[in-house]
């Protein structure tokens, strides 16, 4: 157990370092280098020169990388000249709102996908299975923005049931006062995830259905329902932990799109604005934070999994 976690921990440290190196490389790919990116297109050449000397960008590359890491370790993500705020404060403001959106959609996805997948496994190769399989194919073949547009067209434009825009407000409290406006953004983000998760749940449950412990439980005279809930569900649920960890980067990509479709004031919308005005400190700061969060998340998922399933530790 301990060696396994230690090994994963060392790997995770290297992956986080890898993320910082990638961002550092991108920083140097920028037209005009980091100075242009940080000072903006209107800075004079002299300002750029001064900036380079001040911040050590005239030093060799590895020294620069060291300085960059030093800033990161001290929690300094940079300064957005577009918003005239530190990237830290922008993140602190908008990240919780995106976390709410993503968290809610994961909750909804698991609650829907798990029973759906088990239903498919139990009724395998029956009409229900085919119908859900077909639907999930369509589900994960749809661009996120197209799902959002369709939902807006149906529920806002035609039926007038729900507002076409996400909740507005600067704090999470303000967002939560408009739960109705949250429905469509969360639904948009969930549809693709439900499709993936239920497909996964189906194969995981099918594999478990032929295991000895299910047969033993059945031959002990346990009711079908008890077998399903007490044995199958619990064992099939485990891999979902890993799946959530794995799908986080993809879901965050989806969140960027969803937020721009619904004008939801989270990290994704901030990022999209940053991309349109070439606000690189915001984009790169966000990339580092999300990359590190993903690595920590999948590390946690693996550790949790190892705690729950002893077979993993010795693999």
């Amino acid at each position, binding site marked *: 157990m301990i060696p396994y976690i230690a090994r994963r921990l060392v790997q995770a440290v290297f992956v986080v370092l890898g*993320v910082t190196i990638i961002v550092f490389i991108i920083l140097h790919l920028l037209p005009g280098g980091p100075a242009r990116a940080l000072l903006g297109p209107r800075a004079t050449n002299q300002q750029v020169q001064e900036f380079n000397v001040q911040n050590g960008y005239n030093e060799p590359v590895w020294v620069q990388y060291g300085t960059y890491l030093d800033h990161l370790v001290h929690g300094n993500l940079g300064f957005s000249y577009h918003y005239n705020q530190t990237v830290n404060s922008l993140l602190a403001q908008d990240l919780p709102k995106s976390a709410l959106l993503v968290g809610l959609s994961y909750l909804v996805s698991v609650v829907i996908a798990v029973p759906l997948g088990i239903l498919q496994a139990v009724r395998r190769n029956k009409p229900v299975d085919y119908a859900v399989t077909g639907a999930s194919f369509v589900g994960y073949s749809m661009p996120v923005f197209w799902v959002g547009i369709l939902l807006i067209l149906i529920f806002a434009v035609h039926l007038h049931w729900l507002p076409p825009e996400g909740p507005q407000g600067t704090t999470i409290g303000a967002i939560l006062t408009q739960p109705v406006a949250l429905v469509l953004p969360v639904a948009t983000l969930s549809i693709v995830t439900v499709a993936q998760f239920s497909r996964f749940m189906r194969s995981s449950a099918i594999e478990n259905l032929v295991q000895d412990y299910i047969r033993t439980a059945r031959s002990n005279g346990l009711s079908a329902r008890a077998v399903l809930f007490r044995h199958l569900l619990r064992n099939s649920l485990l891999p979902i932990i890993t799946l959530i960890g794995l799908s986080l980067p*993809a879901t965050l990509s989806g969140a*960027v799109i969803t937020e721009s479709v619904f004008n939801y004031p989270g990290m994704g919308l901030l990022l999209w604005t940053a991309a349109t005005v*070439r606000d690189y400190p915001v984009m790169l700061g966000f990339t580092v934070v999300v990359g590190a969060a993903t690595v920590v998340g999948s590390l946690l998922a693996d550790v949790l999994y190892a705690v729950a399933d002893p077979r993993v530790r010795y693999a």
Partner: protein
Amino acid sequence: MALVRESDPERPPAITLGEVQSSPGSVWKLIGRGFFQHRLAVVGLGIIIFMILFCFVGPLFYHTNQVQISILQVNQPPSGKHPLGTDNVGYDVLGRLMLGGQSSLEVGFAAAILASVWGTAWGAVAGYVGGWLDAVMMRVVDSILAIPYLLVVMILATIFTPTVPVLIIVIALVSWLVTARLVRGETLSLRVRDYVLAAKAAGVRDRWIIVRHIVPNVIGTIVVAATFSVADAILLLAALSYLGLGPPPPAANWGGMLSDGLNYIYDGYWWLIYPAGVAIVLTVVAFNFIGDALRDALEVRLQQR
């Protein structure tokens, strides 16, 4: 790690490439039969063939002006002259759908091929050499995987002018990772097989062993991953264009058309929204159907999906 496995444990053991004793022709026949048993895959193949004909052959018969805008013919509903109406700058929507499909399909195929070649080379070398090099190469893959791909692509698309060739490279840059991981995993088990050891003992160079003995045995995995990559690349291109980072006009693509049509969502101009949206979904579903059938036919165990 225990990840997604789509195989069916009750099915009789399937043939694995490289272990079949009979003549090579029969392997492909069996694979072909496995593939065509999937009705959905045949439907998918039909859709792809239709889309390719529609986008690349269609414009030879259906001539439209897709370069000059015409202010006098803006947002016209479908009519005899314009079967799918005109868009917000007066382009014929049906003709634009063909043109947009060209760039969507080109980017999808080219990015998938590029990503497969690079991912295969990366994974095969990492798995074959092993040790420190393997660890370093796989941490590189993990690092790129940890960053949401849309972010990387967005940043790159703002640095370089997003023309079609640039977008192909940018999308391929984030698409080779899964292939690399899968190929590495299979190479790990292939490199200790007898025929590889025999080749090594006979003094065959490592590069030749990878090309001649490793890669041909993971080709099934590569093909399946590549099929899904095409679908993902088309989706990614659509997402980028939706965010305004796609190829600039007069170049067209389905995502960009959809994004333009959105401005008229309350005006009831359905022909600006549904045709492009349906084209994207149909094409992506088709590639996913084919990938799924190929996976079953080749009995590939994919890590994701």
